[in-house]
């Protein structure tokens, strides 16, 4: 082994050792093979907690009920009871702290997501009462004539 022929090999081994030492310091200590084995579970374990700690923004109707009971009650008694408040008003996040007020979107675009008539026989869309946005009182906000929370006609 004293032969000079092995010199490049020593250099190589040195580089490998260096890489392994670097690995020891750079790679997070919880990096390893997880529940799903090496093929599907090779990762940094604490990243799962990173994702769990992500901010929740949509809080659903039950949250609004506390403070906007009138709206909640009227909405729940209507044909629009299946629609989440936050679909029309945006995510609550930390409302009323931040943002203090939620968006009020009076655009026609909001309503025609469901109510633009699409004659689709095998889809529930075809069953929703539809209008032709170009013909049904064009240019006017829907909420002028319909209560978005309780649109029932009778």
């Amino acid at each position, binding site marked *: 082994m004293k032969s000079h022929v092995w010199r490049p090999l020593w250099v190589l081994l040195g580089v490998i*050792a260096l890489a*392994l*030492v670097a*690995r*020891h310091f750079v*790679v997070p200590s919880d*990096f*390893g*093979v*997880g*529940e*799903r*084995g*090496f*093929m*599907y*579970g*090779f*990762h*940094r374990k604490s*990243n*799962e907690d*990173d*994702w*769990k*700690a*992500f*901010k*929740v*923004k*949509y809080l*659903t109707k039950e949250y609004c009920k506390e403070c906007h009971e009138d709206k909640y009650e009227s909405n729940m008694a209507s044909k629009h009871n*299946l*629609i*989440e408040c*936050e*679909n029309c008003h*945006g*995510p609550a996040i930390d409302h009323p702290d931040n943002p203090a007020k939620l968006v009020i979107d009076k655009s026609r*675009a909001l309503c*025609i*997501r*469901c109510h*633009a*008539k*699409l*004659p*689709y*026989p*095998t*889809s*529930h*869309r*075809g069953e*929703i009462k539809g209008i032709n*946005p170009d013909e049904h009182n064009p240019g006017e906000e829907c909420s002028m004539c319909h209560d978005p929370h309780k649109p029932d006609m009778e």
Partner: protein
Amino acid sequence: MTNMKLTRRDFIMTAVKGAAVAALPLSAFKILSPSEAKAAIKEANVRWGFLVDTHKCVGCGFCVKACKNENEVPYDVPVTRTWVERYVVLKDGKTLIDTPHGGREGFTEQKVQEKDVDPKNIAKAFFVPKLCNQCENPPCVQVCPVGATYQTGNGVVLVDRTWCIGCGYCIMACPYGARFFHPIHKVAEKCTFCYHRITKGMKTACVDACPFGARKIGNLKDPNDPVTKIVMTERIGILKDAFGTKPQVFYLGLDDNVR
């Protein structure tokens, strides 16, 4: 003098060698260690699954809107974690498909891809919501060169934003087009089944946003879970089963035309 020098040098050499040797085994073994893996595996009793009912979907796009806001994927960009496709099958057998802006503004026009459609010609038409299938054998995870994307014990595929190098191999490997580069973080991005919500006992943002119950999430390992019951008792379909990815997003009313 020379002797002293030699010994000092020897000492340093030994110290360096010692340090290197000490560092070696620790890190060297972590590259591949099945034993460690075995130890970590405890029978998980949660496997998240998803159910989409294409009959119920009306194409309002609230799911896409909610998903983008909830998960901080910029609203105006075309890329999205979930999207809704429209299929209009005509009586002559032709199929028109579109997904304007991923359906985030809903479907408000009868035109499909700028083509007028005569309602009398429509044989069937429906909407298909799409999202990551959280495959049992996720090809996107298999190809990640650095272990930045992985599957959790409960079956959700996540991306480590601090470790992803952004090579795009996972995007290429996904047969469903579920992945993309996040325009701000510049790393691979995908549906997480709202991991921060489901692990707190909530539903995903898209499930909560859907007024018609077209989307449902549940624990497939719980036989009493409503989703599991439907998956067990109804005739369900999955997307692109030929790839062997074993999707865990199940569809009711899937059609041959669905891509």
